[in-house]
């Protein structure tokens, strides 16, 4: 009896089988790549804002301290977004007629708040607290990056759970002296391992089990 398929179909069969495997692997890789791409995580993508506020200018340029605007970062879960009044402290004196600042002046005049686009955003079920991290010697730049070099602010880290756990499992590697917390230039010293351990001791940082209990972040 004559055959159904031409012998070449054997090749085709093999190719499709192995090709299939390769394609599956490929799909996995694509999913992973897209998932971690800055398109999805929006890491390092500058956000447009109603007023093109430049941290670079205000921090490295004018040398403002983080806490001048983010007043509650040491005391509250929320670092605090400056009310319009804070902007106007200076901008009622300088750049008083700059068109860029029109929204700020309007807001101040009309009492209608500015609406900023959120840059660093955690899901509702993750309860991050700034004050405790600051108090335990975790610096701003550790999570927010060199904000002093951001003309328009972007998100430095993907802020996924695995990223949080990195430190919660081994905080020592990011700890710095409390007086260095707001220092943008701070670099981990070469002996960070020992330094970090010392700091962890003196700041009474709890063990990993404590830091990685679900209720530490989720309620």
């Amino acid at each position, binding site marked *: 009896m004559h055959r159904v398929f031409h012998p070449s179909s054997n090749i085709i069969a093999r190719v499709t089988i192995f090709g299939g495997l390769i394609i599956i692997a490929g799909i996995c890789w694509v999913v992973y790549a897209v*998932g971690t791409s800055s*398109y*999805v995580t*929006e890491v390092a993508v500058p*956000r447009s804002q109603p007023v093109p506020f430049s941290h670079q200018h205000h921090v490295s340029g004018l040398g403002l301290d983080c806490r001048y605007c983010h007043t*509650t970062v040491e*005391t*509250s*879960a*929320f670092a*605090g*977004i*400056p*009310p*319009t*009044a804070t902007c106007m402290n200076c901008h009622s004196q300088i750049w008083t007629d700059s068109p860029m600042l029109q929204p700020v002046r309007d*807001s*101040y005049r009309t*009492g*209608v*708040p*500015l*609406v*900023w*686009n*959120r840059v660093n*955003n955690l*899901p*509702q*079920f993750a*309860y991050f*607290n700034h*004050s*405790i991290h600051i*108090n*335990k010697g975790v610096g701003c730049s550790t999570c927010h990056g060199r904000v002093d070099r951001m003309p328009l602010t972007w998100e430095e880290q993907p802020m996924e759970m695995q990223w949080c756990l990195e430190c919660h499992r081994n905080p020592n590697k990011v700890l710095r002296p409390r007086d260095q917390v707001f220092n943008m230039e701070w670099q981990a010293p070469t002996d960070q391992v020992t330094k970090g351990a010392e700091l962890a001791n003196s700041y*009474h940082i*709890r*063990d990993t*089990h*404590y830091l990685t*209990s*679900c*209720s*530490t972040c*989720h*309620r």
Partner: protein
Amino acid sequence: MNQPHQLSGSTNGCEGETHKTKKTFWRTLEELAGSESQTNLVKRLEQHAVMIENALDRRDFIKLMSASLALAGITGCSVQQPTEHIVPYVRQPEEIVLGKPLFYATAMPMAGYAMGLLVESHEGRPTKIEGNPAHPASLGATDLFSQASVIGLYDPDRSQTTMYLGEIRSWGVFLEEFLKDISKQRASQGAGLRILTGSVTSPTLADQIKGILTAFPKAKWHQYEPAGRDTAREGTKQAFGDYVDPIYHFENADVVLSLDSDFLCAGPGSVRYSRDFMNKRRPDVSNPNMSRLYVAECTPTNTGAKADHRFPMRAAQVEGFARAVAYKLGINLPGSGATPYTDHSDAIAALARDLQAHRGSSVVIAGDYQPPIVHVIAHMMNESLGNIGKTVRFIDPVEANPTNQLESLRQLVNDMNAGTVELLVILGGNPVFTAPIDLDFPSALSKVQTRVHHSLYYDETSALCHWHVAAAHYLESWSDARAFDGTVSIIQPLIAPLYSGKTEHEMMAALSNNPDQTSYDLVRKYWQQRHGTGGSTGGSSQTSTTPGQASSPPSNTTGVAPALPNPPDGFDQWWRKSLRDGVVANTTAAERAVAIRNSQQAGTASNIPPLNPGEFEIVFRPDPSIFDGRFANNAWLQEIPKPFTKITWDNTALISPATAQRFAIEIDPARRGGEHGNMVSDVIELNYQGRTLHMPVWILPGHPDDSITVHFGYGRIRGGDTGSFKGFNTYLLRTSFAPWFDVGLKIRKLDETYELASTQAHHSMENRDLVRAATLGEFKQNPKFAKSEADDPSKSKWLFPNWSYPGYAWGMAIDINTCIGCNACVVACQAENNIPVVGKIEVMHGREMHWIRIDRYYSGDEHNPETHFQPVPCMHCEDAPCELVCPVEATTHSSEGINEMTYNRCVGTRYCSNNCPYKVRRFNFFRYADYDTPVVKLQKNPDVTVRSRGVMEKCTYCVQRINEAKITAEEQDRTVRDGEITPACAQACPTRAIVFGNINDPNSNVTKLKAEPRNYGMLADLNTRPRTTYLAEVRNPNPEIKTE
């Protein structure tokens, strides 16, 4: 949490300019939306889950389908996060630290009397009510009503504008018309003007009304509370010749006799009283002593449940009982004895001896629902026992103008029928619904030319009035009120009126022709006067209106002690301090010397005719959860299982098991829900004085035979979406002649049934030692009676070495001896943890969501059983069965021994609930949380996740409070102090039955309690090693009385 009270008087946070709350920081977009569209109100709290399940037509279905598919899509593949927005203040109020709540002291007026509160406010949104430790009526605890009042504030069904005959009018238009009417009255000296209020203790309001009554000499002021305290009032008057208020000092009482008085759970002082009373009932090895409580009562009450001896009897027999006791005490009584009481004669003798043995350290207290004569007898007993001045003190009435309210209302109705009433101003209340049926208030009302109703809801009364003015909630109002002991609190608003409501002060200001005064000005001005000589003088010369002629009260109605001395550091300081503390210093009423009038004239027996065979006694009581109906639209209270019946969303006729047998009345579990949710009850016809009402019944062990109790407050028609058409309106049987009980009720079993949503219909403990109890005698012999082998840690059945918990180890101890089953903890938990309401149908399916429930068991004979209350939250087992069966580690164990529930990881297999022996886990079978009603979101606690559909949830020991306290402590480089963390349930508990803390700290309160011999772990023999343990119950029966 012992947050510092904010010094609030000073800040614009509270000087009435709370409009700042409009521009505030929101954690989420939804909340932002919520804040903006406060006026766009459509939906009710009671859940749409019900709607989804029942009324799902094809369209909705398709919508839902696509929605859910879309959802699946979103969750399936990770797309970009939607941009969120941050909306900062323009000018940030200085005291606001974003992310940290503020606490303001204020007070809730309940039937006139103040309950001192601390209110938690997140960025200007009041979210949680706590008791004010500095307030005598609260001592830091609350009752369920004040706990639940916070959603009353956000109730979307609240009236939102001024209305004229159901049409929207502006406040201005109303004033125009109103002032015209008033000027008409001015001519006739107010002959046609009547003001109807509830009981008034507010000095400012009283002062305003007084002003009006002087301006309109012929005008009259009537007061009516449906659950009023006339009998107590008249009792004192008959006994002492004048209205006075008794204050009881249970902290000094070793023997207490309650004559149908539910002093633990009802009445203005109950929260305080229950604390004082229970402080004498915490036996331990060092001091194994307890006070003794005798209760003679009709309807089982929480007080009766805690009694060492309970004598169930018809309400009408209580007088006879009282007389019998008095006779044994050798008191010669006025009035011909009512039907003499013959039962329990030797018990009564023993009781009398017990009282005699405790002269000066005993209390006899009569219930508000007993006739005056019973109060007279109680007072006489207290006098002859030398209790007056020791355990019972008397003060001038706290009410501004005490009066016989029924008579007052009756007279108003007569005037209205006579057509002499031209302008009637009703401040609060809902008389059309609540007035005694025989007065036929509605038809009388219709004869009044102009009727103005000022209330929170557009209710039954509003519908029959020309004008309706939306009232401001007390959390939106400036006002003042007095506590049961006379202490004054100034009520400050937490938020600007959401719905442009007006306070009663503003109404009265309008009536006295200066409508532009804000209530802030009014209250403040009044207290300024009180400091100057301008203040009125001497509350002591309390002249009260005699029954029958409620009328313009003479010179003084402010009812508070004399003009206050000028504060040393100026009025402003005083004002701020008063606001900050929540109590006005030195305003507690002074004790007043009283003497029983010549006992011959003292009162006459209320000769209630004896019960004809075949007839029943009908007993009226306010509903335990929605009171007189004013809380009908409060979904939290509607869904609270009532202390004994555990029924939600309904009221029933309570009958004794014997009566049920006589009429072959049955209650059967339904096929779905069953004992935990859905009971099918027979319906009976109540026939009383020619009026009939059909009602389902509940067979209540311990209810006296031949007597039937009905609760009033249900059956609202205009009670809002949640409150309307729920339950049965028993006001339709309630007459002005027998407001509390009467004979002559006939009942008939109909062949109808009615489905009730009862969360625990199972009475018996099935011989399982869940609640462990003993008598004081047994306790003294064997203090460790409650211990089982499993409670001995050395006998641990655990194969491996015990897991060690360095640092903190959180634990809880619940003293079931002092739990009075008042439900305050349940509502507190609901408020703190964003627990949704599911509605009657879902409760019937056994799906209510309360994280802490109060189990009610009976033991002994069903005609007079012992009742046991046992609050059951999550036990936080150290070897938690739930944890090892969760396939995704959504429920895990923290390093401090908390059994954590991570909602966002839960996939909803419900395996954990199956494997939980305590069945404390709750599941979101539908999307119970209300995502659709903007205003409701304002109440949500931002520190707790709002759970979505399909996830499990349960008690977390209020982990958000624990974290808060730990972070604060860490930042101050110290450890958390004992008492720094208080879960919502423990904080609300009036008797401090729930104690939480660090069991690694040997000195913590909870460790001490767990060290007590009474301490045991429920079902500990399963080796779950629960962190929540119980202190066993100890009763103190009189050895001379053998229990039959």
